[in-house]
């Protein structure tokens, strides 16, 4: 089974993130690039499915040269090979443009199963899996907390507000996963050593057959019109307990519709 896991490098959520003035795009030059957390669950799920169904896992990442670190990390977890789409022309692509570029690569490589995290910690659009499925003309099974594969049938538990739905489709398909799905493994020392020798194909726009006019900041359908720093936090309300602390706290919460 040919499993492709989409991996995005994002700035460390523990550090302060900045938008570039003018473009309104995220400043990706910050030193700490990490694998988007939910993508680690996607990698883990891909590896588990590959182990159970004799599959092969390819990491697909679109991002600047620095994303190579995250690709190496994904390979050290156990993926077999990787494709890195890297081109200055991709900078500033929104979800629509990104899904176009990634779909172009997937059309070329072929796949039985594409797995993504259900959203990235930087843009938080949560739409890439749906857009990919639409562009590729295959079923989408999003927000999965459990995946089962039986032959060409795929069943997932799709997390909803009330509980979960069971969704079934046939392969090839696109799945996006939630963090409940598994516990991602840590790269072992053997995995880290092996990652050095695994093949990483680097593709430019031209190599991947991506039309330069459909990607990048200029071609993006969405535009950041304005942004401002978050206002400083207001001082909190201190409720002094004079025997009626509970009532006052409840009133405070009711006023804000928490209870």
């Amino acid at each position: 089974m040919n499993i492709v896991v989409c991996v995005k490098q994002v700035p460390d959520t523990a550090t302060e993130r900045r938008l570039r003035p003018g473009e309104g795009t995220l400043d990706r030059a910050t030193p700490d690039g990490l694998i988007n957390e939910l993508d680690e669950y996607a990698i883990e799920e891909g590896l588990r499915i590959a182990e159970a169904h004799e599959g092969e896992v390819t990491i697909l990442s679109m991002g600047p040269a620095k994303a190579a670190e995250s690709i190496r990390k994904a390979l050290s977890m156990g993926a077999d090979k990787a494709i890195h789409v890297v081109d200055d022309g991709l900078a500033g692509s929104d979800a629509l443009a990104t899904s176009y570029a990634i779909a172009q690569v997937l059309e070329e490589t072929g796949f039985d199963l594409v797995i993504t995290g259900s959203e990235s910690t930087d843009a938080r659009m949560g739409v890439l899996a749906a857009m990919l499925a639409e562009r590729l003309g295959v079923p989408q099974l999003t927000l999965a907390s459990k995946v089962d594969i039986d032959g060409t049938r795929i069943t997932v538990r799709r997390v909803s507000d009330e509980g979960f739905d069971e969704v079934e489709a046939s392969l090839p398909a696109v799945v996006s996963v939630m963090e409940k799905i598994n516990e991602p493994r840590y790269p072992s020392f053997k995995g880290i050593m092996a990652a050095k020798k695994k093949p990483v194909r680097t593709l430019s726009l031209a190599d991947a057959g991506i039309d330069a006019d459909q990607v990048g900041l200029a071609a993006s359908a969405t535009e950041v019109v304005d942004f401002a720093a978050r206002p400083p936090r207001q001082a909190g309300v201190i409720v002094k307990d004079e025997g009626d602390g509970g009532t006052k706290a409840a009133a405070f919460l009711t006023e804000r519709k928490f209870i």
Partner: protein
Amino acid sequence: MSFIETDVQKDLRASVARLGERYSYTSYTLPRARAGEPLTELWNEAGKLGFLGVSLPEEYGGGGAGIYELALVEEELSARGAGLMMMVVSPAICGTILARYGTGEQRRRWLPGLADGSKIMAFGITEPDAGSNSHQITTTGRRDGDTWVVTGRKVFITGVDRADAVLIVARTEDHRTGKLKPALFIVPTGAENFVAQPMEMDIAEPEHQFTLFLDDVRLPAGALVGQQDAALAQLFAGLNPERILGAAMAVGMGRYALAQAVKYASTRRVWKTPVGAHQGIAHPLAQTRIELELARLMMQKAAALYDSGDDTGAAEAANMAKYAAAEASIRALEQAIQTHGGSGLTAELGLSTMLAMARIIRIAPVSREMILNFVAEHTLGLPKSY
């Protein structure tokens, strides 16, 4: 030696750090230390991931890397408060000695287990009347036909309750000269006439120290490590990694303490500013950072020298690194406690418990004073007082 770590070293650091975060100090190690319970889950997982055996030979299930990498693992775990004392002993001392000097049979029997953590070997040199003066040990191995009979007493031996065997440093009689020479024996903890009694220590730690009584413990010929004549070199081979790993634990604990202190100093407001704005708080923390970084650099130098095969060159650097790291980590914990004010002494933070752990490294495996003696005598050429 390069100051720039390879991708493999960086990736290993990152992966170990993640593991350490999962088994973090306040949620895992501290409660275990207080209950006196071992860190079995962490140990097993670190073993499975190849972290414990990273420096042991690949043909015996190890990672084939060096003491640099093993120290890196210990440092990153300790920096999350999840340092493993038995790493210093089992893979670093015993694993190294067996890999370098063990017989084929000893390597096959022990190394794969020491590498993946499924086997643990403790190390026993200290005796009631031979601590700093370790060359005065009196535990002796006597040949009796095809077997060895070992008799003696050891104190402060860490982790014997969880160990499969203890590597016992003893002496044997040279059959030609009649003089006693050191010899290393692998003594199974289940051997007859081998008794381990827990010592009451005033430190909260996941491991325990034991007094060992060996009363004519009979061992097969294969229990003697390597060559009877080469024991001093064998011992030496294990002691440098021991000091480097001790330094790594200390550097890691110092990093943990400093990180806690900096976090608190950046947010705790007493007057108008966070307390970290006052030089009285900021400067000692900056100083701590410098001292930790220097100790770490010396530890890395020692590891690089050791891995290059320079045992003698590594000895001075390993001693200096252990000295500097112990001192820096103790000061870091001291200052972290002071930075927190009263909170620094709360049970929740567990900083006093960690200070006691850091305090161990000023004494063991070799005391601060004995390192100063070593440097005075060997580096400076000053006369010896003892």
